Structures are given as C-alpha cells and as structure tokens.
C-alpha cells in the first residue's frame, strides 16, 4: 500500500471567537500611539487583554493509504473542517506538518465562485478553473459534466435563474470530474434531493475504486457507513478514535445520544420521558426510513411513565433539515399508567419531500412540562420526488398527483 496522506502532529491555534472580524486599523494605531504617553505618565499598561487562544487542531497524526475512503466525524466545532482546510492549504498549521502525495481537490462547499450573472456554461469553466482544471481538461469533460448534473437545456441560462438544487448539481458535477489523487469532501452531500445524493455517493465510490483517496466529512452516519471503511473521530481538536467504520460510528452515536440527554439515559425505568420512535410502512419492518409515497404508515413513539398520568397533553412536531416545522399535531386528555407505552399515529400517506427530518416531542400535565425530546434518530424520507423539477416551484410537499386531459363535455361554459 502506498501512503497518500501523512499527518504529523498537525496543530492549529485560533484566537477565541475563531476569526477576528472587522478589526479597524484605527484601533491598532490608537493603541500603539497611546502606549508611550501612558508610560511617560508612569501609568501601568492596561491589563493586557489576555489573548485567548484555543487549539482547533491539537497534535493530530495519521496515515492514509492510497485508495482509501476515510470518514471524518465529530461534533460541530470539533475541528473537522479546520483539518480539511489545513490539508487543502487554505490555512497553514501552527505546528506540525503533513505530506501530501499527489494533487488535492476539495469540495469544501460546492459552487464556490459561482457567479449569478454568468451562464451555467461559463460557471463550469470558471469553477473548474479555480478547482485546478485546465481549460483543455474542461473542454474534454464538458459534456460529461453537464450530463451528470442533469441541467442540459439550462446550460446557457444565467445561474441566478437556477434553482438551488440545479446549482448544487452543476457544482458537484464540476468537482466530481476533477481528477486529483486526493479528494477532500465536506458535507456536500447533504444538499440536493436523495436521488442525486445517491448518484453522488456512487460517483465517489467510483472515484475511490480508481485508486484515488477520499477524505469525507459528514454528520450523516448513514452516508459514512455506506462509503467509508475507516473513520477518524475528532473531538475538541484531538484525534479521539481512528478505526473501522462500524465500531467507531456506533461508539460515536452512543456518545452523541448520551450527550443529548445530558446525563440522564433515555431508558425504561427512568422519569417520564420519550425513549424512542419508529415507523412501520405497509408490510415492512420497523424502521426510521420512509420509502413509499403510497403505503399507509404507522408512526410509534415510546414513552416511559414513572407516575400515572391523568390528563396529559403531548405535542409532536416534525422539522425538516432547515429547521422548518412541516407538520405538528397535539393530543389531549391522555391517561396512562406507570410503565412503557407505545403512542401511535396511523397515517394514510405522508407527502414529504425526500430528505432528513427530525421529531420534537413534548409531554405536559397541568401546564407542567414533563419532557421535551429532540429525537436523535432522524426520519429519512427516501421517496421519489414527484414535484416540479425546478426547486423554486416545487413547494414544501411531495403530493402524488395524476395528470390527464380530455375534451370538456360542455365546452367549459358551465363551471361549477
């Protein structure tokens, strides 16, 4: 096996607050000028504001072999993106070094440098250029890029008229056709509809098969599981775990769950609280995934009750990945004995757009909140989109509809 990336004690220090924005030169000059005067008057220098720093990366070392797909996981602010930024040379490490064998391509945010006033074609060239492709390379791959992005007939339209989905598809497609030895990907696959996400994952697997190395940052454990053989878990800038995907991801998930309940474990036998949920779709087993627009489903929430409830109220909200409440329902006057209960809703059809959703549940009795639960396990909607193909016109729901035309029976004179 040939080594692809070797990191030796990579460390990166930032000032507190991460990035110091909008520092005024005026302030710097005033500070410098007033210092001698103060010294002259014999005043002590003002308590020097302790430059608070923190290590966004702290002594990270690893070796990655050529052709590996390695997932990088960790909580927000753990240092994942900083690591990618160091490896792509966007920022320099404070200490340590890394040897990179080959060219690095990165997808830190798709559509970087997309200009709204330029057409899709022009943006493909510009974006390809800043990602490191030559004009000749882009020329030869142009058709492939457009085909992959599924934006064919809009390619000469200015990008500001594109839907966000189309922009992302085009941008990802440009980047996916880069041919660096090492590809760094940051959370890009959370955008676009699920069908396109799958296509991207396939593309990445294909890229890896051709012997190239991929470093993949994601919060979505199902993507990590599907793509990576090895996972590096970063916590507070340090390398916390490095190993096989199955083991590291499940450790990470249980840690994330524990964190969410802030110490109190969500198990039967504890206080009154929600402890889990699942859905049953048609004949399928319990899962957290919705696959069909047509099958009736039953969503079940598991509630542990430690003292009998006389007249409880529950509120349930379903939020999309942007945090918008897409559906809410409440139930009143619930009587429950001590023990674990299944609270179920039967639903004829759930017209949700593909994507990730989260449940938020609360339970109250006599105006007192007993539990508020933000479910860790997301609802994954993997149905086919049946909405307008331009995102802007697709709306928020995914309602299956049948279209037909026929001659009006009475020339349309009589309306309703």
């Amino acid at each position, binding site marked *: 096996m040939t080594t692809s990336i070797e990191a030796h004690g990579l460390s990166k220090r930032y000032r507190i607050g991460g*990035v110091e924005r909008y520092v005024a*030169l005026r302030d710097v000059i005033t500070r410098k000028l007033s210092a001698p005067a103060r010294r002259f008057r014999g005043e002590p220098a003002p308590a020097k504001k302790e430059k608070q720093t923190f290590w966004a990366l702290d002594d990270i070392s690893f070796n990655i072999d050529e052709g590996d797909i390695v997932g990088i996981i960790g909580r927000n602010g753990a240092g994942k993106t900083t690591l990618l930024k160091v490896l792509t040379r966007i920022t320099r490490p404070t*200490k340590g070094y890394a040897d990179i064998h080959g060219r690095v391509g990165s997808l830190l945010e798709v559509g*970087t440098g997309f200009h709204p006033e330029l057409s899709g074609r022009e943006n493909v060239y510009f974006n390809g250029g800043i990602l490191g492709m030559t004009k000749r390379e882009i020329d030869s791959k142009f058709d492939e890029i457009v085909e992959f992005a599924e934006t064919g007939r809009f390619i000469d339209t200015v990008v500001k008229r594109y839907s966000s989905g189309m922009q992302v598809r085009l941008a990802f497609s440009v980047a996916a056709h880069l041919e660096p030895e090492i590809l760094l990907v940051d959370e890009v696959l959370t955008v676009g509809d699920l069908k396109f996400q799958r296509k991207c994952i396939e593309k990445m697997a294909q890229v890896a098969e051709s012997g190239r190395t991929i470093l993949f940052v994601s919060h979505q454990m199902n993507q990590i599981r599907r793509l990576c053989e090895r996972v590096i878990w970063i916590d507070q800038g340090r390398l916390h775990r490095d190993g096989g995907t199955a083991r590291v991801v499940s450790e990470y998930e249980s840690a994330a769950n524990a964190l969410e309940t802030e110490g109190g474990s969500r198990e039967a036998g504890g206080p009154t609280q929600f402890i889990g949920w699942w859905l049953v779709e048609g004949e399928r087993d319990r899962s957290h995934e919705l696959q069909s627009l047509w099958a009736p489903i039953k969503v079940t929430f598991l509630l542990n009750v430690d003292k009998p409830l006389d007249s409880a109220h529950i509120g349930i909200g379903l939020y999309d990945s942007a945090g918008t409440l897409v559906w809410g329902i409440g139930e009143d006057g619930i009587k429950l004995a001590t023990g674990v209960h299944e609270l179920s809703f039967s639903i004829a059809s759930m017209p949700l757009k593909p994507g990730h959703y989260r449940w938020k549940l609360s339970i109250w009795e006599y105006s007192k909140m007993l539990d508020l639960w933000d479910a860790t396990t997301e609802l994954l909607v993997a149905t086919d989109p049946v909405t307008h193909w331009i995102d802007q016109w697709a709306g928020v729901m995914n309602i299956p509809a049948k279209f037909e035309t026929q001659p009006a029976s009475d020339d349309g004179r009589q309306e309703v």
Partner: protein
Amino acid sequence: MSATASRTGSAATGKSTPPITRIRPIGGWFDLNLREFWAYRELIYFFVWRDLKVRYKQTFVGAVWVILQPTATMILFTVFFGGVLGLPTGGLPDPVFYYASLLPWTYFQGAVTTATNTLIDNQGVVTKIYFPRLIMPVSAIIPGLVDLMIASSILVVIMLIYGVTPAVTAFLAPAFILLAAGTALGVGLWLSVVNAAYRDVRIIIPFVVQAWFFISPVLYPAESIPRVFRWVYSLNPMAGAIEGFRWSLTGVGNPPGQTALISAVAVMVLLVTGALYFRRREVMIADVI
C-alpha cells in the same frame, strides 16, 4: 513511519510518483514560490475572463461607460482648468492633453482599487479553495487594460480633430501603461492584505487615490514642477507613466527619459517588497478575512 520511507515506497510501485507537497507552518521571508505561481497561471486567465464576461455582459452599456467616463471628465477639465483657470498643458490642445493624461490615470485608479479589494471581494473563494493568492491581485489589474484599449480609440479621434498627428514613438505607449499597471499591482500587493485584516483600509483608499491624483501630472505637465524637485516628483511612478504615455503618443514635449527611469526603479522596489510582504501575510488571509 518517516516521510523518507514512504517516498521510496511510492516510487517502488512503478507508477509516475505523484508530487509530494509538504504542508507546514509559515516559511521564511524570501519564499516567493514563483514556480507554483507559474503552475497556476491559467487561473489568471479564468479570473480575468470572468471579470470581463460579467462587465461586458451588457456589451453596449459596458463599452459606452468606459468611453463616457474619461470623455466627460476631459470636457470638465478643459472647461475649468484649461478655460477658466488657464493651466498650462505643455503645448498640447487642452482636450488632447487631458484625455491622454486621463487614460493611464483612470486605468490606474480602477486597477488599484480592484487590486486592493480583491481578497475581500473574492472571500468566498479565498476561504474555500487554495491557490497562490498572488493570482488575485495580478488578475485584478488586467481587465482594466481592455477598458483602456477601448477608451484609447477615442483618443485617436480627439487627436485627429485637434490636428495632433500620432507620433512614431506610439509603440512605446504600452511600456508606460505597464509602468502604471506595475504601480497598481505594487500598491495592491501591499494594501490588499492589510485591507483583509483591517476593514477600515477600504475607506481610506479613495482618499489616498485622490491625493495621488494631485501629485501626478494629470492636470499639469511635469515640467511645471521646479527642476530641483523633479527627481523626487518622479519617485511617484505614475509621473513617469502619465508623462511617458502622453509624450509617446503625441511626440510633444521632452522625452521623459530620466523621469521614466526613476519611476521604473520605484516600481520595481514597490513590486518586489509588495510581493514579499504579500507572500508573508497571505497565509493568514483565510484566518482573518
């Protein structure tokens, strides 16, 4: 595993060994890394191409504007400075003098402003993708040259109207524009990184440029400056650029040999120090912007 061990390892596979890049903390002061800059040269083309595309998207408005701006200014100058105040114009008809001075000046003014703001204006790219940052100020001074060429066509018309025959030295004009471009780049290199770190620099720039206008021979010929101060005056590279440009096209006045020479040296100093300073500071751009 040591770095050396793996290097021999990759050579053993028989494939052409991919280049090895070492990522490490900030290097020395004199690490310009022009080889890498050269490897990325095509990116300059992409940046310039994008800027021109966006600028001339509405072709008519774009082209008209680059002609209208110096022409209108020229008319104002002719009426007030030439007519009312009667300032000397070194033996050239007022409109020819002012227009010929305004061309390199307008270019410089635009180029220096874009170059200074280029890191901030492109921060989306700067914080997401690596390439030698030197590409950005260099690309920023190029699109203005197209405007300059378009506006130059009007100069020929004005010269013909006022009976000034283009001189044979006209082929030297690009050299003086190069001087202006070098000045804009040198200033851009210094100020763009300062601008990225301190946002009030953006407010100071227009003032600096305006002051620069008065110490450059746009409204008056350099010969109005007393001879003893002439060499100090020439330290402003725009003096050499504007004087030279005007002289090369019209052939009127003395060849600005000494002025141009001093200006060229000043530009070289500005460029080299600017590039070194820029390279030194560019590594923190993504962290502070």
